[in-house]
């Protein structure tokens, strides 16, 4: 199906299975524990500094909500503003169209290489692979993307795609691979992050200085002025946005904001939520083309690729408010333990679990909405207040519906749920079950504990004892002591 190009990775097993592999990876677990722990504390410290943080979140959520309700108008205005400022706007319904547009634009320059700013949209459409097929080499310049690219790896985090790698692994990748792509890693490279960053600086410098074409994503675009915004830290973004002659920006249609003034809210929320900084080192804002300063040829590619399908779902559309800060990943107890690869999608973590199934269709990512305990930490961290648990349970219902539709026979789970539903909606049947369970428990329990349970419950009982059902349910106790034999009431009845 269109749109599934790189949003989900073919061949990745369902989440529970992929998670099992990830959980057994000691190094991955250590890397994730350290990284998410660090960023959580930093985020809490800088969000606590703003006494109107909650109001900011409210405002951002409201802005995104109402922008999405008139998305077509805002995009048309954006197109007009960008065009008036000397840029060219392209529209792409899916990944294939977007890749074709970018490939055509690069070819028109006569160049065979491009430098890239980290961008989720181009990850999503598999642009690098598409360019490679057309004989165009794309160099990732964000440090984490560089680590992923050199390692022949996949991103596992929205903000820090190489979060699954520790410093010593990064050193190995640099030593082994840098020479194949350009300037080799310095002799005797250590695993000190400072030295690793320096190695990346030297490796990429040459590419920046000779680059004629850059490809970027966008964090925001203001419809009224045509201003596009890229938020970054390292300066690789500035390099790509100012040195080349041609700049091609691929942006999801949901990134548009009505006005330049709306940026004030998001430029406060994004850095504090993503890297836990008051402000990220570099934020670049540009409007079309400026004579004598930066690229003289600017193209903005507006990408749908499943977003309008998401927009059509009145509950699910809130996922389009996402500003890709990844705060939800960093606070998620599931993500913290499995990392991003287990999600099998370019969008991992809680936001991935609600976004991916909507972008590619629930049947192509059916296990993701279940990859959550619904603990709600993501909702509390989200700077635009996406109610991720709400969307998760909404998508679970859709996943169950899809299975009901597609199968001739109900799943075993559906049969169990149906039976449980019948029992749980009748007090008479429930009381009967309780009596039966109490009886059964006396046969299998030892000291009031059950060690091994049958069937799917074995996964539970493998690591946990289960208390035996009580000999007398509360309902039975109440009837016996309060409604029939009030005189025999005991003070306590454990």
């Amino acid at each position: 199906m269109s749109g599934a190009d790189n949003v989900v990775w073919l061949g990745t097993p369902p989440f529970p299975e992929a998670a099992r592999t990830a959980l057994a990876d000691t190094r991955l677990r250590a890397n994730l524990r350290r990284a998410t722990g660090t960023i959580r504390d930093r985020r809490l410290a800088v969000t606590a500094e703003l006494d109107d943080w909650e109001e900011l979140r409210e405002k951002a959520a409201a802005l995104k909500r109402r922008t999405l309700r008139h998305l077509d108008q805002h995009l048309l205005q954006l197109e007009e503003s960008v065009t008036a400022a000397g840029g060219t706007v392209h529209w792409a319904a899916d990944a294939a169209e977007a890749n074709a547009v970018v490939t055509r634009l690069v070819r028109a320059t006569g160049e065979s290489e491009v430098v890239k700013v980290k961008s989720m949209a181009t990850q999503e459409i598999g642009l690098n692979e598409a360019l490679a097929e057309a004989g165009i080499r794309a160099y990732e310049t964000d440090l984490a993307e560089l680590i992923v690219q050199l390692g022949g790896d996949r991103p596992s985090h929205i903000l820090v795609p190489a979060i699954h790698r520790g410093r010593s692994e990064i050193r190995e990748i640099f030593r082994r691979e840098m020479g194949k792509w350009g300037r080799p890693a310095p002799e005797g490279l250590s695993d000190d992050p400072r030295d690793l960053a320096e190695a990346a600086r030297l490796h990429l410098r040459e590419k920046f200085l000779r680059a004629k074409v850059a490809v970027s994503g966008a964090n925001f675009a203001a419809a009224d002025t045509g201003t596009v915004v890229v938020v970054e830290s390292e300066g690789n973004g500035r390099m790509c946005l100012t040195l080349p002659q041609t700049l091609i920006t691929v942006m999801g249609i949901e990134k548009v904001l009505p006005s330049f003034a709306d940026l004030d809210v998001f430029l406060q929320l994004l850095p504090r939520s993503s890297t836990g900084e008051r402000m990220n080192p570099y934020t670049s804002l540009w409007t079309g083309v400026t004579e004598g300063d930066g690229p003289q040829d600017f193209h903005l590619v507006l990408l749908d690729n499943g977003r309008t399908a998401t927009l059509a779902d009145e509950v699910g559309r809130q996922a389009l408010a996402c500003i890709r800060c990844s705060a939800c990943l960093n606070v998620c107890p599931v993500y913290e333990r499995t990392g991003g690869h287990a999600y099998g999608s370019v969008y991992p973590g809680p936001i991935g679990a609600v976004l991916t199934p909507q972008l590619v269709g629930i049947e192509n990512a059916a296990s993701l909405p279940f990859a959550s305990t619904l603990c709600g930490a993501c909702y509390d961290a989200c700077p635009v207040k996406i109610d991720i648990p709400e969307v998760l349970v909404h998508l679970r219902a859709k996943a169950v519906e899809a299975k009901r539709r597609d199968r001739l026979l109900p799943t075993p789970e559906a049969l169990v749920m149906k039976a449980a539903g019948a029992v749980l909606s009748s007090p008479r049947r429930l009381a009967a079950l309780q009596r039966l369970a109490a009886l059964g428990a006396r046969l299998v329990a030892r000291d009031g504990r059950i060690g091994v349970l049958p069937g799917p419950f074995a996964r539970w009982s493998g690591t946990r004892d289960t208390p035996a059902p009580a000999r007398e349910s509360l309902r039975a106790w109440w009837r016996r002591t309060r409604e029939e034999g009030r005189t025999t009431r005991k003070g306590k009845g454990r």
Partner: protein
Amino acid sequence: MRIALFITCFNDMMFPSTGRAVTELLERLGHTVEFPQGQTCCGQMHFNTGYRPETLPMVRRFAEVFAGYDAVVTPSGSCAGMVRDQHRVVAAQLGDAALVEAVERVVPTVYELSELLVDVLGVTDVGAHFPHRVTYHPTCHSLRMLRVGDRPLRLLRAVKGIDLVELPAAESCCGFGGTFALKNADVSNAMLADKMRHVLDTGAEFLCAGDNSCLTHIGGGLSRLRTGVGTMHLAEILASTEGNVR
């Protein structure tokens, strides 16, 4: 005050002692507790697993059975959250106008135990006595769905004889998550391991929470490993008195 006890299906069968504790506690405070025999389940398991149509009869039954009380109390943050946040969703999506109305009427009367005690009955010192070292795990739905805040801790701090110790990383999920513990058993276990480690670090004799479901999960792990740490629902600690330590 005429208070109805919604015990929840899980507690009814597995932990009737929690229901008896709630009853004793509220009666000790001078209130009348009733147990509507028509009650069953809030429907959370079905709703959260994606079986919405199956949830509808339970939502309907809840609204009927619990109509007309001054307050409905439940010793489960999770089930209280289901009723408060999700019954309207089910009624609006699958029910009729009459059901929506019935749900809207009953929902504001439903309280989790610590909410009822602190907000409605206005007590934090319930006259309890529990001479043990205890640590408290704020379950996710109490914390982030109901926003009970520090109400349970205020109640526990007022218990005589208690040695209440802080649980490290208390606000992290224990990994239960209902059917999550079966569907994603491995991740659930990984989360459980960390929660148990934090509990053991406190040196507590008892782990306390406002939800027996999470306690079954954590307690099941603590029991399997023979840690000797017990679990106890908030209601049972609050029901304990000098002459009747549970």
